[in-house]
């Protein structure tokens, strides 16, 4: 459905997104993850044709360009801040874009906005504005919904409600591209993960495959921590160190054993440990930084 091919996005002359390529299929919930300044929002804006870019973006085989948005007729989005007119009521804000009043009313009920929907949006709290922004994005049964930090300012009940709504829409075939810093929340909904760092996509995998491939890391304990660190640096081995315990990538364990053996460093412990999603992401980012540093 959405095809992003070799996209380079520029702000001024600076290249923010570098050669991004990925696809999103109907019903997919794709989590866009990355550190601050990685290019998540810029990538989302690019898909909406809001930035200067080269490469190809197609939605249902129709191209999106900087000045042609026909392909985006069935796309909903919430980018950075909820786009709300403060001088209109919540309902008027929705009515401005709604094709079907029943759809509008259903979203109001599902997001628990009935109490304040007829008040001017000027007086809304951050969470209320956020819910209204999400409702605008979900109007008219979109084919693709782009949500940038949708859980910002939401209380627990609303977060659960939004999550259920995302699942409900995805079950009907709506595709989602969602960025969030709350990885645990994103983990509960996403079916596909895209990890981006410094404008480059470093992972694009179904979540099951991602967890299977990256779920394990190894714990390592040696009799000379200082010398081990020295050798890891020398041989460009990625690691994290907590007290005297190293965490290393499974793909490096044979090389590590050879290095340590050649330096007469003895292993005290080498064992697999499970990582949670956040730790995997941190590891991958560290690994990518290490690789870039090497190059």
């Amino acid at each position, binding site marked *: 459905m959405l095809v992003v091919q070799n996209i380079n996005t520029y702000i001024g002359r600076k290249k923010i997104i570098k050669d991004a390529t990925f696809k999103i299929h109907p019903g997919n919930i794709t989590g866009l993850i990355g550190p601050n300044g990685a290019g998540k929002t810029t990538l989302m804006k690019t898909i*909406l044709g*809001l930035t200067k870019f080269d490469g190809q973006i197609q939605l249902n085989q129709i191209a999106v360009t900087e000045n042609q*948005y026909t392909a985006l007729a069935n*796309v909903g989005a919430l980018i950075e801040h*909820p*786009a709300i*007119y403060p001088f209109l009521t919540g309902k008027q804000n929705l009515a401005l874009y709604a094709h079907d009043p029943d759809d509008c009313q259903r979203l109001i009920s599902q997001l628990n906005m009935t109490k304040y929907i007829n008040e001017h949006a000027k007086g809304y709290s951050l969470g209320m504005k956020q819910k209204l922004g999400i409702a*605008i994005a979900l109007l008219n049964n979109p084919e693709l919904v782009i949500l940038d930090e949708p859980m910002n300012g939401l209380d627990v009940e609303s977060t659960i409600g939004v999550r259920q709504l995302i699942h409900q829409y995805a079950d009907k075939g709506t595709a989602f591209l969602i960025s969030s810093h709350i990885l645990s929340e994103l983990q509960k909904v996403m079916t596909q993960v895209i990890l981006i760092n410094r404008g480059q996509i470093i992972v694009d995998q179904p979540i099951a495959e991602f967890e299977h491939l990256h779920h394990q890391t190894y714990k390592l304990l040696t009799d000379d921590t200082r010398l081990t660190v020295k050798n890891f640096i020398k041989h460009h081995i990625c690691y994290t160190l907590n007290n005297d315990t190293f965490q290393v990538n499974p793909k490096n364990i044979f090389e590590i054993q050879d290095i340590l053996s050649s330096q007469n460093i003895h292993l005290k412990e080498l064992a697999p440990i499970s990582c949670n999603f956040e730790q995997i992401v941190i590891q991958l980012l560290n690994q990518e930084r290490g690789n870039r540093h090497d190059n």
Partner: protein
Amino acid sequence: MITNLREELFKFSHQKSVVAGIIILILLMIYSALTTKTDATQVIFEFGAVQWIPIIIIAVGSTFFAMEYQNRTIVILVYKHTKRWQIYFSKLMIVWLYSIVLTIITTILTIIIKSLFIDTPWSTLITNHQTQLTLLIGNIIGTLIYALFIVALSFMLIMIMKVNAVVIGIGLSLGFLGAGISVALMKSFTSLIPILRWNPLNMIFITQQLANPPYAAISHLSLIEIVGGNLIYTIIFIILGYNLFKKRRI
């Protein structure tokens, strides 16, 4: 395009500045009628409304566009609509329609005030052997053409300045000092009049010259030239403003 116009009209009609503009204009006209000598000239110039309408339009118009960036609604506005020019053109049309509404209101109010305070019949010959009614109609048409110039200018300025307070400031200076500066320039550099008479500040004279052709001696532009000048400037401002809008970072 019709959807665009409908959406823009909906937003525009809900903005406080729109109603405020109408109320301020009515109050200024009443103030003018009560504090100055009510005569035929006052009627022709709609009790100062001819001068106030461009200022109100520049303030309301620039606010109407600037609020899309302030509220971040520009994001939805752009991607929800097929073409960017439709957004720009719809806004332009709505603000120009507002100038028509302002002109209709001021004309009705002028008729009411005149019927209350001035006995001179509409058919009375005043300047240049024209009736009070002809002069009034001339001024109304002039104001509407100048409104096009002003709307296009305010949109272009908001794309350049990005802050509507600055644009409103420019609008006020244009309304109060524009004509004076233009005349002063042409008096100071008489040899350059063939060029200076085309300066944008000189275009404001259309509001008077259409009713009163002898104003050509001040503007140094014929009736056709001043109408053409206003329309050409409008097109230039629209082209420049739209290109800035297209390139403006969202």
